[in-house]
């Protein structure tokens, strides 16, 4: 149907890009590249954050029970805002933790992983021109999600303080400068994103640090999007404090959680939001106009998982007690392995990530002046291709203009079987030997 000439309006239309403007600047994603590299080259994958051990037996059994013959209706739609058994137990569980009465129908909403919960928050509350404060280094999706919503991300860094002589740095040594943080708030600030325990550093914000943030939220009357997916993974007797429990915060906070991280089942993609109805009603609007329902069977199984944990809360058999205990041991193994070869680990207070300073290994991957790519990214790619060990460059967790600020760190995930961590140790030892031998 070619006409000899096209109308002006048709020409104009054809010269415009087909995609919507909201996609501008958010098409790049490091995971696409690094996951592919790990799949192609790695023998030991400590890159992407997921366990290489299975979910606990009680959870797998719950899934199988959900598939029994009499439960065939679990293959059909459930309640859009969350499968009733799941929202009921979440309301009970988090009500207990927060010390308040939660209504499962209005104070809880289930999402497709914590990722979709974040998406709902930004879409519900961030309009064109709104500013959102993001603490760096951070999980990489916050920035593009804010941009997709038409908002402006405003970054504030955690700054490392030198550790005491002879000691290894801890994630606690990375701190916000209160004056700097305060300066980031403006009339246009709509929300701040808090991630504690923090990915990638593993920092567990202290009460004092949270109070600082809370005071500013209240003073400037802004929302707090609190990504707490690693809430159970805290070590050395530290406490995960929920900012929503601080004064003035419940009414302005959306708490985000994840079954994937809680129960080592990242592939189930079950997450949730907890908060006041006045905020959650808008998350429900986004949810019902984007995915509407979440898959039923996994929600049923997660509900049963939480039921068990509610009954065993605080007891040694509780998965929420056992998992951090196991992971702390793994953390310590990895710290030892890295320290022994000269990669300086920053000991994480929480999460299953660990960031290490690779400065002593720089000779293997020479600096390329004026390179577009941050050093740590080139290092990580070289390492997976040549040593078979996959990790993620820390620059991946900084926004575009800050990527070169901390370019000699890489992030390891230690939620791995003992054998995997031993194999990592072997690679590191061999590498060190190759460096020191003439």
């Amino acid at each position, binding site marked *: 149907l070619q006409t000899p000439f096209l109308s002006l309006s048709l020409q104009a239309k054809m010269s415009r890009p*087909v995609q919507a403007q909201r996609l501008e600047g958010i098409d790049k994603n490091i995971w696409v590249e690094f996951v592919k590299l790990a799949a192609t080259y790695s023998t030991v994958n400590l890159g992407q954050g997921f366990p290489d051990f299975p979910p606990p037996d009680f959870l797998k059994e719950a899934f199988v029970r959900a598939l029994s013959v009499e439960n065939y209706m679990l293959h059909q739609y459930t309640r859009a805002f969350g499968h009733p058994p799941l929202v009921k137990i979440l309301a009970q569980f988090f009500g207990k933790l927060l010390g308040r009465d939660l209504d499962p129908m209005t104070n809880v909403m289930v999402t497709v992983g914590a990722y979709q919960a974040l998406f709902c928050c930004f879409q519900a509350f961030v309009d064109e021109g709104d500013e959102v404060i993001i603490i760096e280094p951070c999980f990489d999706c916050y920035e593009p999600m804010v941009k997709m919503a038409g908002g402006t991300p405003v970054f504030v860094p955690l700054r490392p303080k030198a550790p005491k002589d002879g000691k290894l740095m801890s994630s606690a040594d990375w701190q916000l400068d209160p004056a700097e943080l305060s300066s980031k708030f403006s009339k246009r600030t709509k929300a701040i994103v808090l991630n504690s325990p923090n990915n990638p550093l593993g920092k567990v914000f202290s009460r004092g640090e949270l109070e600082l943030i809370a005071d500013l939220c209240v003073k400037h009357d802004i929302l707090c999007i609190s990504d707490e997916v690693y809430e159970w993974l805290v070590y050395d007797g530290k406490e995960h404090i929920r900012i929503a429990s601080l004064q003035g915060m419940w009414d302005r906070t959306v708490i985000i959680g994840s079954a994937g991280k809680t129960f080592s089942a990242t592939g189930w993609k079950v997450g949730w939001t907890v908060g006041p109805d006045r905020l959650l*009603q808008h998350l429900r609007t986004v949810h019902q*106009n984007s995915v509407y329902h979440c898959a039923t069977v996994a929600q049923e199984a997660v509900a049963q998982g939480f039921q068990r944990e509610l009954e065993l809360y605080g007891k040694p058999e509780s998965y929420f007690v056992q998992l951090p205990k196991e992971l702390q041991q793994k953390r310590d193994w990895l710290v030892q392995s890295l320290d022994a070869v000269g990669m300086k680990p920053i000991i994480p207070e929480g999460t299953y990530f660990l960031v290490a300073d690779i400065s002593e290994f720089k000779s293997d991957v020479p600096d390329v002046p004026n390179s577009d790519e941050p050093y740590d990214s080139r290092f990580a790619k070289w390492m997976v291709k040549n040593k078979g060990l996959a990790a993620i460059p820390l620059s991946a967790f900084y926004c575009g203009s800050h990527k070169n600020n901390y370019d000699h760190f890489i992030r390891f995930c230690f939620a791995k079987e003992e054998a995997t961590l031993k194999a990592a140790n072997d690679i590191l030892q061999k590498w060190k030997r190759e460096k020191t031998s003439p």
Partner: protein
Amino acid sequence: MLFASRSFCCLGIRTYQLQTDLLSRSIKLSSYATMAFRHKNTRRIEGLDSNVWVEFTKVAADPSIVNLGQGLPDISPPSYVKEELAKAAAVDRLNQYTRGFGHPSLVKALSQVYERVCGRKIDPLTDILVTVGAYGSLFSTIQALIEEGDEVIIIEPFYDCYEPMVKMAGAKPIFIPLRYKNYGNSASSADWVLDPAELANKFNSKTKAIILNTPHNPTGKVFTREELQVIADLCIKHDTLCISDEVYEWLVYKGKKHIKIATFPGMWERTITIGSAGKTYSVTGWKLGWSIGPQNLIKHLQVVHQNTLYTCPTPLQEALAQAFWIDYKRMDDPDCYFYSLSRELEGKRDRMAQLLQEAGLKPVIPDGGYFMIVDVSTLNVDLSDVDEKQPYDYKFVRWMITSKKLSAIPLSAFCGPETKRQFEKYIRFCFIKKDSTLDAAEMILKNWNKQTA
């Protein structure tokens, strides 16, 4: 009790539960007004909070009501589908993240099935995106390709999410109704057609896309080759995209054929075709769907996906892949589930139609899908004393639920504001129901006239 309903709670304005002592201690009184403003929702979701399902799934959650409303099977999915899910969940690594744009074995299986159906090469990595239900595919497509200043043509009646999704993307929905042409005694979904001149008038330089749904929810219309050609010609002439919602693609009844508009000359490069595991395998609760199209369009959907939920559940995708392999291998065999389900449903369709006719109702026999719309005006139920402002079909369904214990969905829920009056004498029944449900419906319909006499 299981809630097999789409939405359970009421979304109306709730009384704000003030923790007054906490608030007054920490917030000065003068800033309370600012707080109300600050916590306001964004413009993009303004007015999109209400929804027909809120009301009608709530009432139908009552087990004493025979629920033919929401589109949800109460029959069991095939056993091999359930078995594959159990097998997948037993594999450790299948409980962790998979590839964001679609689990490799699933996109491979989809590419094989659809290559066969479309007669063209489909690249599993670049031409396919797996999403959270077809709903997620619609959202990804609209967010990727539609924005403020665009117009999107929507054919009425329409699956209700199209309108709010287009609005959420900042664009303007342009409605065009299917119009009933009486060709004789039988009322068939084929009698509902678009007026080609009227359709052509809806296209202009702002028209970014048209949303096509075939087989059609709620009428069950299966667009013919000629009807699709009219749409295709306009898309090409105006350089418009086509979002083709084909979730009921396998559910076509005797004498009818599902035709994919993407296979027409000039259409592959401008069409996103959407499919659904829920409708293909009677597993609506798995919430897996897919978008298939040319790389230069799918890549934008992938960008939306990586910034919204990143990846879909792994064990469900693996199980779906295995189910597809089983049926792909027997696509020449009548026992293939794609064909056997539609045969089973045809029987239910015919039974449903008969029951409705015997009760004095005029069903529109669908050529596809698992819904049937019915003209209830022949019953002459006088509801004039009930709230005037409500469309007749809403009043009728509420009355039917209360007095007959039978639920359906009012058709005006699927219409734009101008057309609601046109469709308010129709209600929609879902017939993908087990025999005992249809038996219960039969009892109600047989006794209908006795009670009203």
